[in-house]
């Protein structure tokens, strides 16, 4: 069932983030089993899988929110267990969540949230933090009254931008996006994905995109791994996997997502 031995996004570049034969479980049940991957600076890795595949749990392990039962997750060569709260490596890997509303403190405005991050994580003095926060938020496309409004007044797209801004304020090396656009409208999804592409280019950020949507994986990632029931069933360059899936499950997924003729041409000219 497992295919290539060679790890995706591999090569000699030092991996910012790596997982080595990671197994994760709750109360004796293995949710993820023997997964390995590497994320180098500026890479775009996709983790594709349907519900129950363990991809979200894997994402949590990659950010250091949970620790593996077996194997290790290392950031800059160090295991998460060894990275303390105040350790500079802590901020290297940040996360974007599926539900932007849950990811924001309902009583804090976007500016307040980002200011706090700048102050606590980057040591920006309080009096400057507010203004710097405004700059960070502008970079993700939030400005004007939206910055000083509480989350319940913002649209889904605006909330997700705020979440991205907060993560960005840490100046991370890797952004792990767990279904970042699943709860958003199609046109808003496009805005957020475009934003992520732009930010990657501007900041040299690596992106790990965890999603069930193969179309998004196809559009956003260079390499990907396909998960099912906790294990990796296929991995390699995204284009190759989607064009010529070797595993039956991958093939079924590709058919389901991209099956019907999408050879509609290069899209509208504008």
């Amino acid at each position, binding site marked *: 069932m497992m295919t290539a031995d060679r790890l995706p996004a591999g090569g000699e570049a030092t991996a910012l983030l790596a997982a080595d034969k990671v197994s994760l479980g709750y109360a004796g049940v293995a949710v993820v089993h023997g997964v390995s991957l590497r994320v180098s600076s500026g890479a775009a890795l996709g983790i594709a899988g349907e519900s129950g595949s363990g991809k979200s749990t894997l994402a949590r392990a990659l950010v250091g929110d949970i620790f593996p039962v077996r194997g290790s997750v290392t950031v800059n060569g160090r295991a998460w267990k060894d990275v303390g*709260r*105040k350790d500079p490596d*802590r901020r290297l890997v940040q996360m974007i*969540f599926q539900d932007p509303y*849950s*990811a924001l403190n309902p009583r*804090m405005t976007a500016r307040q949230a980002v200011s706090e*991050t700048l102050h*606590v994580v980057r040591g920006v003095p309080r009096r400057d933090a507010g203004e710097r926060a405004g700059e960070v938020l502008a970079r993700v496309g939030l400005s004007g009254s939206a910055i000083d409004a509480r989350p*319940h007044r913002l649209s889904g797209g605006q909330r997700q931008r705020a979440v991205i801004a907060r993560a960005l304020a840490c100046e991370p090396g890797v952004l792990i996006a767990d279904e970042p656009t699943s709860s958003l409208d199609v046109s808003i999804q496009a805005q957020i994905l475009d934003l992520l592409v732009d930010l990657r280019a501007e900041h040299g950020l690596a992106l790990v995109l965890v999603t069930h949507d193969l179309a998004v994986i196809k559009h956003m990632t260079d390499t990907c791994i396909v998960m099912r029931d906790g294990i990796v069933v296929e991995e390699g360059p995204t284009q190759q996997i989607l064009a010529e899936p070797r595993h039956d499950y991958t093939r079924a997924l590709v058919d389901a997502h991209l099956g019907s003729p999408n050879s509609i041409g290069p899209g509208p000219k504008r």
Partner: protein
Amino acid sequence: MTLVTPVGSTQARRAQRAPRRSLRLRRRLPGWLVLVAAAIPILIVILGFALPKLTGYSPTAFVARPLLAPSWAHPFGTDQFGRDIFVRCFVASHIDYLVAVVGVGVASIAGSIIGVAVASTRVRGVDWAVMRIVDAVIAFPFIVLALAFVVVFGQGASLLGLPQGMPALFAAFLLVGWAYYARLARSQAVSLRSRDFVTAAHLMGYSNTRISLRHVMPIVMATTMAYAVGDAILTVALTASLSFLGAGIGPPAPEWGQMMFDGRGLLQIAWWMTLFPALMLVTSGLCLAVIADHAIKRLEDRA
């Protein structure tokens, strides 16, 4: 049945009871009603200060013949000692409101802190132990516990010039009230723990203290405060009840429950002694209920 329940379950129960005919958006009480409801208790308190000066009647002095029916000179009549009930009713508000504010205020703050602390502690067993104490306190009938405290502290005790019995009442409400808020705060804190923004805070390296104090606590307090207003109604009623039972504020200080106690044997000939304090109690309760409802709806709108 506890006075306070987690927001989530209230919403769930409300949703289940939604009428089949139409799911109308839950209406807010009209703004003017809330303003009026907020203004009335304030007005009562102000009158409580002003009336003795305006009328020249002290709430504790015998100013006229006893048991006079309501008249222009004494709108609420006089009691068995010839004290003016009108003035007494309004001055009594200070006592009841004070107990409610201090009792509920301190209990809710203390309880919230305990609840949040317990929810975020890593020390094993603390959560369990404290919650069992909370369960025990809540399981007791409140009045029985309050009575017990009053007996222990003694009704005669007078502190800082406060009316007799007040310190005992404070103690009663504080020592019992915190438990309800601790339970509410804890369950809120636990459910907040799993929200993504708390995860994000951990990922950014925020300290547990910062997360508890600056993120979790304000949200929890918003909920507890909203319920505290509703709790205040009950506290006022309980103070009156305890006084009625002879275990609350002692004479000669005016207090609604105390006044109703005085009037109970004379209902047939001096109904005004019981009616007017009762009306004050009910009015206060209604106003607080409206304010509490408004506060809770605002909270749920935001959540």
